[in-house]
């Protein structure tokens, strides 16, 4: 079996034929590196909240979110059962998303929900801090990096998804491949 070190991708973009030459080793290395770092970003954030339990998201969903365009979606969770749900869902969600990306398991699902959480963080933290660092800030860049992991996947490189793709369950249900990296 031959192993190419560079690959030429040809496609159409905005009506033009375009081609991109990618280094195989650098591409594989970089998407895995990116997935691992984004995974640790959320795994650390989730574990930190769990280790220092109890976690209270009231300041976010009931406070900062009131100035956000997402207020109609977020503020109904500001108290009672809604807040209790968020107080558990955020730490557990961040931990599972991070774990999935670090081990490369269910990579695209994990990165998708990472992007969903970052959407809330971006549109609530932004106006909460008067967009003091501009509209292209760390939250938006993290959101786009999660989308990058969704687009390219990373779990097939030294990840659990490489194994999961070969299981009978995935082979018998090809649509499950969309959940993997």
């Amino acid at each position, binding site marked *: 079996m031959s192993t190419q070190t560079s690959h030429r991708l040809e*496609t*159409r*973009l*905005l009506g033009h034929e375009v081609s991109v030459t990618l280094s195989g080793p650098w591409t594989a290395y970089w998407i895995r590196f990116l997935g691992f770092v984004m995974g640790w970003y959320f795994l650390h954030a989730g574990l930190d909240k769990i280790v220092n339990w109890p976690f209270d998201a009231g300041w976010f969903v009931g406070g900062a979110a009131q100035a*956000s*365009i*997402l207020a109609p979606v977020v503020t109904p969770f500001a108290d009672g059962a809604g807040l209790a749900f968020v107080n558990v869902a955020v730490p557990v969600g961040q931990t599972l998303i991070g774990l999935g990306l670090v081990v490369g398991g269910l990579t695209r699902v994990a990165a998708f929900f990472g992007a969903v959480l970052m*959407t809330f963080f971006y*549109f609530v933290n*932004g*106006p909460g801090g008067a*967009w*003091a*660092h*501009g*509209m*292209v800030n760390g939250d*938006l860049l993290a*959101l786009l990096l999660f*989308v990058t992991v*969704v687009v390219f996947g990373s779990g097939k490189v030294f990840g659990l998804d490489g194994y999961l*793709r070969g299981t009978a369950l995935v082979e018998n249900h*090809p*649509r499950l*491949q*969309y959940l993997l990296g």
Partner: protein
Amino acid sequence: MYVGGGLLLFGAVVIGVVETLFGSPHAVTSEGQIVHEALVPLEVRSFIILAGLLVWLLYAVYKVSSADPSTAAADSAPETAD
């Protein structure tokens, strides 16, 4: 795909350039904070960026639901951006 990215770039970059060139004078503090009055309401820019993200989401759902799953793992499945 283009519409989603276009909205995001319009909300974040194009209006950002307009703000920089034609907005009120603004200073950057020693902590990197940008202090100025916005020409285009930040809420409007937020809605434009959110619309771009939602268009991307809807496009992704459409592509996943309409694609033939048997070719999902193929390394050389032909596809054009649209």
